[in-house]
């Protein structure tokens, strides 16, 4: 029932064994040890599991593992710079106090990455819309929107 699939994660080749019903989040966390991606609700509501597949933000808890065969996946681990320094979006979140317990942060950052890749200068409304599927129980969102704005400016200045 299971078969081997091969794909790219954060630029590197990877393989896994997956059958129907298996989820991408389990391949990432259990199979590959990429535990940056979190599981909150497991039902598509909270966004903690957000990763980017072929350029689009998706919920890894709803994404069939077998479907990533031949595709390109980016997780929060893929956003760090050389020597594991923080990437610009990660740095903006830290600098703006947009992280408290941090559980929602990887998902927030991946939604931000997908947004800014397609729209380097989003309005506050566009930011809020892009993050609608990412819940935070701690910060109250103001600092998060601020962090996205700062990351956008940092991205454009580069």
């Amino acid at each position, binding site marked *: 029932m299971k078969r081997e699939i091969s794909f790219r994660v954060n630029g590197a080749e990877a393989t896994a064994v997956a059958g129907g019903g298996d989820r991408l989040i389990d391949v990432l966390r259990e199979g590959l040890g990429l535990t940056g991606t979190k599981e909150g609700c497991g*039902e598509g509501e909270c966004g903690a599991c*957000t990763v980017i597949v072929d350029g689009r933000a998706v*919920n890894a808890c709803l994404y069939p593992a*077998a*479907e990533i*065969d031949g595709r390109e996946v980016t997780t929060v681990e893929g956003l760090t710079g050389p020597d594991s320094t923080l990437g610009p979006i990660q740095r903006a979140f830290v600098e703006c106090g947009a992280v408290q317990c941090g559980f929602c942060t990887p998902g927030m950052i991946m939604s931000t990455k997908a947004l800014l890749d397609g729209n380097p200068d989003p309005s506050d409304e566009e930011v809020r819309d892009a993050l609608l599927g990412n819940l935070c129980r701690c910060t109250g969102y103001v600092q998060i929107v601020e962090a996205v704005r700062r990351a956008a400016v940092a991205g454009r200045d580069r």
Partner: protein
Amino acid sequence: MIRCEYHCPRALGEALGLKAAVPGARVIAGGTDLMVRLRSRELAPAALISLRRIPELAGVREEQGGARIGAATTFTDLLDDPVVARDYPVLARAAARVGSRQIRNAGTVGGNLANASPCADSALPLLALGARVRLERSGGSRELPLDDFFLGPGATALAEDEILTAVILPPPDIGARALFLKKGRVKMDLAVASVAVLLSMDGPVCRKVRVAAGSVGPVPLRLREVEALLEGAAPTPERTARAAEVAMRCVAPITDVRSTADYRRHIVGVYLRRALESLLGREAA
């Protein structure tokens, strides 16, 4: 989580062949409805047949003056599509209100309809636009009005060996305008109630009216009695108020975790009137 085969066919014929050959197999498009139900073991299909890599099922193209929307077109693709934006903007408006960005990136129009929830956001504008659905099986195909596709909550006209392959939209009605209004508890939510209205005027009278309402019955509903009340008549404020009363009487909402029957009924009346007045360029009283 269930254990079963996951098939990734690359052509529609292959998918239809699998659907016919494997009893109990289920198709999976975006998985945004199905994956939750697999995990809870509510469903245990014999196999999953993915529709994600079938070129025939993806995207929108113009066809016979109208449009053909492949069943596996995601809401994000719908939102980016120039034909939809130009000819069927009400559909884009509804697509924009589905779930979150992540859900729209995966969820498809075909999955939304096949799932047959009374709250399916795409169903309302599609009913108002007069959409038809194309159902195909190995060696055969048929088309029916979307009105006849929904049979009950989670139940559709799809036979065991059929796949919903496309939504067919008639040529855009020149002069008609349409609106979709959705009430959720918060912005990202399934509809507590929703209304889609299409209106075309002929001088002072309504030439054509289509009204659909969501989350207020076992399936997404066409409110034909409301349409009949308005068509051929001048839409005076008195008449739109009367239309709202009729709409509230026609629907059959239930009370559940999301809302009460009374509130849903109320919203249908308010939103119908608001949509009509707005399409007429007036302020809702």
